[in-house]
């Protein structure tokens, strides 16, 4: 079975370490916050200018001046700090954030990522994504392995406008956990009950498959 959105988030959360400063993108990455392993402290960075993002406010706590990068009302966690967008991106671009998790439309074997624009269809903008992928060493992309129409999102060469080049080393999809190195995808783990054959069939880019591909445990 392909992973649910929550299982995907749960698997990504295992890549966190105690004391990490983490930036989570919008969508599935946001769910990762729900699965911080017990006994571990992480601090969430929100690129509009908040380090130490807390849970959503209660109805009484809602404050229009207190939002996250997804423009949702949030609270500040204990020990949080708030600052300008320039300060926020100094953290990001200066490589001070330990882990970045974001979604994508496509990823390729060179570690290139396309995540912000489908020409002629969708005009939104890159927000902070280009800064995040250029500034971080440790980036995990989360996405579905294939589009709704069954087209692979793991390619030899991205077809959409790029968000960043040569910056992605880890991808967690609903079918598999893969690493990118030496111009290839490397299959590390598969989702429970998903066959290697299915993953191979749905991966358009060159994929290295070891003899033994363990199943993710939940």
């Amino acid at each position, binding site marked *: 079975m392909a992973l649910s959105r929550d299982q995907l988030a749960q698997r990504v959360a295992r890549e966190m370490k105690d004391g990490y400063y983490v930036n989570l993108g919008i969508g599935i990455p946001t769910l990762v916050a729900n699965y911080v392993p017990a006994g571990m402290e992480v601090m969430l960075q929100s690129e509009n200018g908040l380090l130490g993002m807390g849970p959503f*406010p209660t109805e009484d706590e*809602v404050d*229009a001046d207190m939002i996250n990068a997804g423009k949702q009302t949030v609270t500040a966690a204990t020990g949080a700090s708030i600052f300008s*967008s*320039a300060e926020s991106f100094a953290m990001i671009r200066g490589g001070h954030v330990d882990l970045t998790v974001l979604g994508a439309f496509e990823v390729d074997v060179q570690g290139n990522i396309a995540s912000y624009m489908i020409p002629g269809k969708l005009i939104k903008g890159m927000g902070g994504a280009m800064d995040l992928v*250029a500034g971080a060493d440790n980036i995990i992309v989360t996405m579905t392995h294939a589009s709704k129409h069954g087209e692979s999102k793991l390619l030899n060469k991205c077809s959409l406008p790029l968000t960043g080049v040569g910056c992605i080393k880890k991808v967690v999809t609903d079918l598999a956990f893969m690493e990118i190195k030496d111009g290839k995808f490397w299959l590390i783990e598969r989702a429970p009950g998903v066959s290697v054959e299915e993953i191979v069939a749905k991966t358009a880019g060159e994929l290295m498959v070891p003899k033994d591909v363990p199943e993710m445990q939940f």
Partner: protein
Amino acid sequence: MSGFNKVVGSYEEAMAGLEDGMTIIAGGFGICGIPENLIKEIKKKGTKELTVVSNNCGIDGFGLGILLFDRQIKKMVSSYVGENKTFEEQLLAGELEVELTPQGTLAEKMRAGGAGIPAFYTATGYGTQVGEGKEVKEFNGRKYILEESITGDFAIVKAWKADTYGNLVFRHTAQNFNPMAATAGKITVVEVEEIVEPGELDPAHIHTPGIYVDRLILGTFEKRIEQRTVRQA
């Protein structure tokens, strides 16, 4: 106005001198911490052909979005414009120009502009459409693109508190782009929720020193929320 007193009495006075074709740098992220009344004044003035530098372009009917209806904006420099149907329509119809700029690059363009730095190198956008046509330079084995800084004829800013000298304090994440915007305008106009006497704000807790501020006005704010998310008490 006398000495360092920056307080003006009306929004007309606050935006006096704004002309067609000028560049405005605006603080705010989404519709959080936006100078909502200064934007309304621009709508009232009917100034056209504006270039507006702001992370977002408001939403339909609020914030910078209200300037789109009368086609007052010629060009937007923004990182994300996904929440605005009018924007998307005008863009797809070729009636509006947009320069999509990565959020951190945008913040740094304003910061550098205000600090007298004409351009800077950044890895952000290298190898993407953002980097096309820009100078590339390698430092320590990594490639960077040259980004030019931004200054505006006007900067419009929303702060929480100010003293009459224009020393500013922002509230929570309504700070966002406001401190950089404040530095990057030839004329910087700030609207605030409260104005106090000099000496009442702790000098060490000022976010933006009054030297950057030209005009200050007391406003009342609607403060809409874009995504109201709550948890059960």
